[in-house]
């Protein structure tokens, strides 16, 4: 997927003016957080599990090289293949090669964010292989040629009328005048269409929510059962995943699973949780003949360097999106690349570069809700601040912004001068604004006052009031 993160301001403006999108975002904000709360309240050990999951993930990252090698050895022991891919291009080529070797014409796919990251669908299409998304939400947006707008609810931005239009345009095999206004009817139609595709497919591509070093297993969770049909019916199963997804043992995977669905949708566990290890065994009567795992780096090993390592604990639950006031206002597409919300604002600059993504670290009110709900305790606000610093250093911030920050830094480093200047500014603003109590427009802050007024200062600065009070007390 090509990044358009540098257009975040324009993207957001468009999103805020889009009524259908705003309605959809309200539905999201009403639904997920309340259901998560309920699920967490039903599990008194939730915080203990969080601490444990965090410790597991930190332990893995400390020893990531060894755990990946152990995982690869176990996959091979079970008769599978592991493909190490440094970047998106290498991963695309690997998947294409496996599909070609299998003589594939169609490929079913279950939702995979890494698949989006490497733009695998476009690549397969360009080489004459048809990829068919099977998660209902992904299927809808594939027909519309859109990108997912949420980690776990990819079509969250659409209304049911839009789905009706999309299905009517795409499913020529059904009568034109059929009724298709209820979600139930749409679901039945999608089930019929996709069932055929499942059975025909030559290769099935899934993501992996985790991979397990102890056993060489890929863990895949869904509510629909589409990943299971994707990996069971074709001759070949390819699981594509990031190198940070490894956990040591089956029991460690269980710890993460106890947090994942609760944080994501507020379910205790997803309907289907699948542990896939290797290809069909000699005496099996179904299942794929070949099992491949594509391990993608694509900038992750670089993130291991101190400041951003914590984001590699992310289990892609989406809770930080669901609780973010900025995500809830503009939706996922505004972020301009695969990942959105707070985790996207931290991860995308690492994967596509801070120059492209320099707006994203600013897409935050620093309210801290994301860190509070994150099941693996990722300090998202702190990392957004680190990215802001890097954006500044990388000169991704415009000239006026840089000059302003330099001026502020100059003052902030000189406390006496700072007090003198702020005191004078307060006095002047206070005097000028005495009559109306607020300013409609300010020089040098035109952008800020377009949509709001600045209250006029009511007295001396905080610092001088504080000093005054201490003098009075003593």
């Amino acid at each position, binding site marked *: 997927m090509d990044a358009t993160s540098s257009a975040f301001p324009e993207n957001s403006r468009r999103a805020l003016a889009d009524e259908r999108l705003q309605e959809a975002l309200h539905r999201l904000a009403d639904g997920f957080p309340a259901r998560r709360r309920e699920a967490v309240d039903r599990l008194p050990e939730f915080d203990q599990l969080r601490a444990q999951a965090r410790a597991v993930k930190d332990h893995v990252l400390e*020893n990531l090289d060894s755990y990946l090698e152990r995982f690869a050895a176990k996959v091979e022991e079970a008769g599978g293949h592991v493909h190490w891919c440094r970047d998106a291009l290498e991963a695309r080529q690997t998947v294409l090669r496996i599909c070609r070797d299998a003589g594939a014409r169609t490929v079913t796919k279950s939702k995979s964010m890494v698949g989006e990251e490497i733009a695998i669908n476009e690549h397969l299409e360009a080489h004459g292989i048809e990829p068919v998304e099977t998660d209902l939400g992904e299927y809808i947006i594939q027909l519309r040629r859109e990108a997912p707008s949420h980690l776990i609810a990819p079509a969250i931005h659409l209304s049911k009328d839009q789905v009706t239009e999309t299905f009517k345009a795409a499913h020529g095999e059904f009568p034109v005048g059929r009724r298709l206004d209820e979600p139930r009817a749409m679901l039945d139609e999608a089930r019929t269409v996709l069932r055929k595709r499942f059975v025909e497919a030559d290769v099935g591509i899934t993501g992996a929510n985790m991979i397990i070093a102890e056993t060489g297993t890929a863990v895949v969770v869904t509510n629909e059962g589409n990943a299971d049909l994707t990996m*069971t019916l074709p001759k070949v199963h390819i699981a594509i995943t990031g190198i940070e997804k490894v956990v*040591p043992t089956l029991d460690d995977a269980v*710890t993460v699973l106890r947090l994942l669905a609760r944080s994501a949708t507020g379910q*205790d566990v997803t309907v289907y949780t699948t542990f*896939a290890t290797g290809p069909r065994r000699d005496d099996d009567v179904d299942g794929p003949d070949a099992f491949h795992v594509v391990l993608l780096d694509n900038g992750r090993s670089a993130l291991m360097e101190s400041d951003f390592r914590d984001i590699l604990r992310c289990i892609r639950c989406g809770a930080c999106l669901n609780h973010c006031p900025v995500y809830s206002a503009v939706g996922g597409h505004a972020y301009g690349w695969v990942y959105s919300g707070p985790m996207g604002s931290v991860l995308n600059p690492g994967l596509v570069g801070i120059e492209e993504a320099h707006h994203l670290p600013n897409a935050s009110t620093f309210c801290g809700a994301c860190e509070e709900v994150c099941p693996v305790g990722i300090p998202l606000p702190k990392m957004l601040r680190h990215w802001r610093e890097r954006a500044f250093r990388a000169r991704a911030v415009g000239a006026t912004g840089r000059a302003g920050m330099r001026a502020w830094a100059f003052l902030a480093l000189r406390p006496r001068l700072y007090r003198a200047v702020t005191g004078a500014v307060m006095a002047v603003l206070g005097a000028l604004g005495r009559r109306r109590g607020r300013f409609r427009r300010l020089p040098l802050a035109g952008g800020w006052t377009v949509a709001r007024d600045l209250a006029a200062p009511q007295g001396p600065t905080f610092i001088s009031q504080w000093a005054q009070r201490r003098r009075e007390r003593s």
Partner: protein
Amino acid sequence: MSTAREQILGNLRKALGRGHLSPDREAQLDARLSASGGAVIPARGRVEGQARITAFCDEAARVGTTVARVPSSAAAPAAVADYLAEHDLAADIRLAPDPFLADLPWSEQAALSTSAGPARPTDTVSVTTATAAAETGTLVLASGPESPTTLNFLPDTHIAVLLAETIVGAYEATWSAVRAADGPLPRVVNWITGPSRTADIEQTLLIGIHGPRRQHIVLIDGQDT
């Protein structure tokens, strides 16, 4: 590909500020991999006896799995026939090729016709065995010659025959049932918690998108001889 592998691993080691792990450290990781336990196991996974069976049934009901309790395995075919009749479903069932299921008195149910093997796209009802975890009302099925995976996903209705004594409390306890002593895991272990569902259209919860529309359990409640 070995160059990509070496480069990725090399980058990780560089970022971690070290070379290969020391043999001592590797041995510690070996020990961690073979140790079990030490984990936080929720209280709801630590129930015993009859309370565990009740907890399992309650959790299953919460996610829309239906449960029929019968006293003995001999009563299972009748329970399957009743369920199908009650829901007006065709009585052609596809059985897992499992000797336990094969031994049940299916022929006493005149309405049922049975065959055994992996699911074909035309099969509408499957019957398999399963074990379970009470923690979340979750069925556990491991693939194998007697337990084809397609039966769990292709038919519209999946019925699992479950012996009450095989229900464990927490997820951790399910591994010993599916794992050979030291061999690899079965090709697939499926945890199934309710019928297939989606909320992808306007967040409306709907049942039966790709997997079974109905998830039913015939629970044999320990009184069997």
